[in-house]
């Protein structure tokens, strides 16, 4: 466990270096963009701006300054708004976190039962329908699904669900978040349906299920008590992986629904070549994803006593 935690830290340091180097390969920095907009370049001005932003220093030094600040909780300043990066990022986190949690809840509540149903009724029309549906769910681009939902709202209600920062009360908040959350969660639910189905089928073929059946346990007990418990193990691991994919979906869904969350902010920062913002946002995403995977690994070992992580 200690070793795995160490590996996790190594991965994060590696990611920070990778991102840092990649972003420095980019042709043009914020000084270029500002001057492009002005249409006129005064080399002295440009050099001054680059010096102010620390862009003239060697890359290893820039990296050290960034990581040093990060460890002290100082994320630097946004080039774009000239405000501390932390003030830009922090208020956006709860918005995205709520969306992600709601989306994952949808995905599990819909995906897992449908997967079980599909497996229990293997090779019936129900199974085929669910399989085709889940496959098509994986084929829909998240942003298109979002646009289609907007379109449906226009057609049926004449308005689109608009994001407001101050919804009145719990139910209004839930309502506001659930539409985009459903748009993101749909893909994950399709994925979980497929996974639960194949995992259930695997388990249902095992000896202990035959034993349960021969001792006269009802189908209900077999499917939902004996089989589901073990079939959920691989599903839990994949929920960890799915967290990363969900984040990808959130980037476009927040864009489509115009929600000021962290995920959409990444794209905006990239467009502005706002290095401190991009770096910090990617690091934040990396920390979240790596931590979720770490927790899921631990949970997996706890749920399945056969797995032990040797130290």
């Amino acid at each position, binding site marked *: 466990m200690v070793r795995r935690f160490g590996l996790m830290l*190594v*991965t*994060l340091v*590696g*990611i920070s270096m*990778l*991102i840092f180097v*990649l*972003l420095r*390969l*980019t*042709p043009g920095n914020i000084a270029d963009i500002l001057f492009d907009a002005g249409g006129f370049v005064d080399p002295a001005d440009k050099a001054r701006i680059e010096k102010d932003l620390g862009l003239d220093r060697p890359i290893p030094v820039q990296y050290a300054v960034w990581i040093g600040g990060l460890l002290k909780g100082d994320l630097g300043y946004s080039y774009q708004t000239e405000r501390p990066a932390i003030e830009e990022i922090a208020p956006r986190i709860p918005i995205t976190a709520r969306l992600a949690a709601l989306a994952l809840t949808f995905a599990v509540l819909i995906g897992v039962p449908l997967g079980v149903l599909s497996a229990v009724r*293997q090779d019936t029309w129900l199974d085929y329908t669910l*399989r*085709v549906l889940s*496959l*098509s769910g*994986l*084929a*829909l*681009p*998240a*942003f*298109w699904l979002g*646009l*289609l939902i*907007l*379109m449906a709202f*226009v057609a049926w209600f004449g308005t*689109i669900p608009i994001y407001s920062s101050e919804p009145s009360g719990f139910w209004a908040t839930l309502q506001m978040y659930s539409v985009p959350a459903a748009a993101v969660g749909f893909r994950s639910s399709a994925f979980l349906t497929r996974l639960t189905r*194949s995992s259930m*089928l695997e388990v249902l073929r095992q000896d202990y299920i035959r034993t349960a059946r021969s001792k006269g346990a009802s189908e209900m007990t077999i499917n939902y008590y004996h089989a589901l418990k073990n079939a959920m193990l691989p599903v839990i691991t994949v929920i960890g992986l799915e967290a*990363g*994919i969900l*984040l*990808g979906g959130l*980037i*476009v869904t927040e*864009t*489509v629904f*115009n929600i000021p969350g962290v995920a959409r902010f*990444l*794209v905006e920062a*990239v*467009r502005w*070549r706002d290095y401190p913002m*991009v770096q910090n946002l*990617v690091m934040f*995403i*990396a920390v979240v*994803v*790596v931590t979720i*995977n770490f927790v899921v690994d631990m949970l997996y070992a706890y749920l399945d006593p056969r797995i032990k992580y040797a130290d």
Partner: protein
Amino acid sequence: MSTVDFQAELSAAGANVKSRWGAVGFFIRRYPLGAAGAVIMAIFLFAAAFAPFITIYDPLSTNATASLARPSAAHWLGCDFMGRDLYSRIVYGARISLAVATGSMLLGTSIGITLGLLSGYLLGWFDLITQRFLEMMQALPLLVMAIIMAAALGPSLQNTILAIAFVLVPSVARVIRATTLSLREQPFIEAAKAIGMSERRIMIRHVLPNTLAPFIVLATAQVGATILIEATLSFLGLGVPEPHPSWGRMLSESAAEYVHTAPWLVIFPGAAISIVVFGTNLLGDALRDLLDPRQRS
């Protein structure tokens, strides 16, 4: 022990295969969904190859009088804001998707195969470093990685291909490495060593061809993913730029405005993406079932 023997795989799956057409017939009967996927892929390839012959309008020529024209006999799927025929743009868009899918697959998988093969066969420090690096890349969501790459390179068709190729490398390398690891313990590799074959020759002549089956399974599954990533990058304005008729670009943020006024501009390009990706998924599923006996139900 050379390449994938589809004939043998088919008979193993229970087919009574006498001729090539018999094999095709079996595939259709055993995997109707996979066959449907193959048909969708064929239509997609046909549209990309013969785009000038099946369209009337130029996908790039603008026409102010046809701005936001509704779908009609003249413009089957309507026109966009600049009066460009949507049907033409979607048909030509198949070329962009195909170019990105093949380009990034070729590039990404050749790097991935090389890394995986070397890593799994040589082991040692090379393996250790490569694996740590790939793990790092995989710790970030695919789309986030692609966005950073695309942003670092700048928006263009070539750079989109490069960015997507880059994010494909880890999964290919890991699958090939795992296969290589199990292959290197096989008796026929030992035999090749015993007769004094050089390491390089063993790797290329004996190990590489045997990684083909898992590779095909992975590659088909990834075609859909590359098309989706391209569409998403272009949608965000970080992928294939105007005036290329990219399906994702057609749906770019401004599309939200057309939700009210010109829904056809939102429906058709998205449908094109979804149908093609659905087709690759169906075909990929059937191929996996056929080539990977452990998954067979």
